[in-house]
């Protein structure tokens, strides 16, 4: 992931989603963290992406009804 021609903010943008997915290698994670520590532009956007992810997850989460839970338990093999 090294190279003189790569703009560090572009590189950081590419890494933010896999960073949040915990899919970066240790080395990549360190590159991203060290850039985020020193770059206000990227840090703001990183925080936004993190909050956006949390907002979507919380907003779309719907719990299973107790009735469905009971129906699933009824599907178990009866004990002899």
């Amino acid at each position: 992931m090294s190279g003189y021609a790569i703009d560090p903010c572009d590189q950081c943008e590419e890494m933010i989603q896999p960073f949040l997915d915990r899919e970066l290698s240790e080395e990549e994670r360190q590159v991203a963290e060290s850039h985020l520590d020193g770059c206000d532009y990227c840090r703001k956007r990183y925080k936004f992406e993190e909050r956006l992810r949390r907002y979507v997850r919380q907003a779309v989460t719907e719990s299973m009804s107790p009735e469905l839970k009971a129906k699933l338990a009824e599907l178990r093999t009866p004990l002899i």
Partner: protein
Amino acid sequence: MGETAPETEARRLAEDARDRVRFEEEALDLADQVYRVARRMVSSREEAEDLMQETYARAFRSWRSFQPGTNLRAWLLRILTNLNIDRGRRVQRSPDMQPLEEGDYFLYNRLEESTQGQNPDEERVLERLSQDDAVSALSAVPHDFRDAIVLVDIGDFSYNDAAQILDIPVGTVMSRLHRGRRILKQELAERAVADGGDSR
């Protein structure tokens, strides 16, 4: 000292029953988490409930094919995904690939623009969006992309697990996530702008 054949058989049956009971309990303990993902892979609560019942019925029938020590939640979602396809709700196809011009920071930038260039507070701009906005924006994402988002962002699955559940290569999971998230942001941006900048 040796056991007779009937004793061996009885012991085997008892062990089998014990393993099955343990499997069923573990699978039921995961039902809430499986449902959260399933609910967003289909369009209605009724469909999700039907699919959950079919999934658990099949899982309990074929519990022996689960390899202990592997990811049971992923195994259950693999069954659920296959059943969803079998029922004809899903046609397996390559999703349309319209060009997407916007980058990853599209939503942030759009929200920043709509606050007249002031740096938006990350929490405040999201306050403009309601719970319904998120649900409808996610529903608007084409299902192939949405499934990848739901598994990784809602279900917390790794790229590898999502690839196995959806039976697609890991690289395809990554590209669907990439495009799906951008589509989701476009949908959210439309709703944020439609909701107006006056709701402070």
